[in-house]
């Protein structure tokens, strides 16, 4: 499982990196970015899903 942020959709709402700072970070303009290649483990998947369910722009995608 991998998580990614679509930069075209993200408006820098900042929810992802506040909820899951180990998975997401932000760039100089405050947009959300995924740390590393976004691979999720059993330990991080729930947190990634929680971040996803708090992104107002629906910019976070979790894929097989």
């Amino acid at each position, binding site marked *: 499982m991998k998580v990614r942020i679509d930069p075209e959709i993200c*408006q820098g709402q900042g929810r992802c990196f506040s909820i899951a700072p180990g998975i997401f970070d932000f760039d100089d*303009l*405050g947009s959300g970015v995924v740390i590393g290649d976004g691979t999720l483990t059993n330990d991080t998947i729930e947190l990634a899903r929680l971040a996803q*369910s*708090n992104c107002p722009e629906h910019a976070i995608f979790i894929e097989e």
Partner: protein
Amino acid sequence: MSDIVEESVKVPVDDFASDWDHTDPQWVNDPYPIWEDLRERCPVAHTDRYGGGWFPTTHEMVSSIANDTEHFTSRMVVVVHNKYPPNFIPAPIGGAPPITSDPPFHSIARRVILPAFAPGPVNALEPQIRALCNKHLDHMVGREFVDGGTDYAQFIPPGVIASMLGFPSEDEEIFRDIVHLVLDLIDLPSEVRGPLFQPMSEYFGKQIDDHIENPRDDLTSYLLNVEVAGQKLERQHVAGTMVLILVAGIDTTWSAIGSAIWHLARHPDDLARLVNEPDLMPVAVEEFLRFYAPVTMARLVAEDYEFYGCAMKKDDWVLLGFPAANRDPNAFEDADKFIIDRAANRHAAFGLGIHRCVGSNLARLELRVAIEQFIKRFPKFELVDGDTVTWAPGQVRGPRHLPLRILS
């Protein structure tokens, strides 16, 4: 600026579905039942007031308008009687970029200010904000009666913004007058309202001149010197962005802090939970923002356009109710309940789409710290019986007078 007539005589609203007015006392005091009724009945309300406009009430509609900059322009975002005042600067730049800008200029004006409000520089302000909160709380301790609005909430955002822009902090009163003029006094006829802007332009002109003569490390000097494609910004652009930051940064957050305190005064269980579980704060802040979202925006219809069966005409107003979207039961479970530990919360308090609030990191920080410090000093308080809470009219909603009794 403060000695002008505030109440103009107007006809009370009988049916908000065909004659909405967001300055009607019923709406100002408690808009939520009105929105709920309209959402079930319409769901797009209409008015002939303000030259004609629409008010969509579902999350889906609000989201689609916010994301459709082709049919809905941002050249005016505050509903007033005169759509094109004499000093009007048309889109795509508008009077207060980027909020009054349309694409493609919008992203240029937005990128200019984004770095200043990114998490890094904003988080560095936390100690300063905490100290500011404590300074005002120090004046309140020992009293049985305090006002959560006029003794506290109204002071926090102006102090922060003044220091970011590099304006003298003793000018706070002037900032609140400016905000009052832009956001509250919207119902005045344009002949009365127009000239009131003169002192504001003069004030900003003075600050800009002072920063040109004495450049320093603040947002004003940054805006005066930043280059886009090798060119400095025009003075008018800098002044417009400064007005925007001042107006967008003060009333909004002041209202959010006030509403949160108002909620806690009426819900001792939630207050006790926050006092006992400080880690809950970030989640609670999001629910405060959803439930009491202070900011409603506006758009103008760009061309005649059919929207959900409504024949919208060019230049009709559209009141963009992010607070109403946040109470839509189709978008949120138990939308009408305040759930302090709500886990999934895609609220739209900061807007949606390209105009999404630039200042949200700062707003969240101010709200969290202001509440943390308040409940640390006053772990128990309630509303004062028989005394009235008053609410700001217009598109930014929050308590202005918030009389509280401190319980020991």
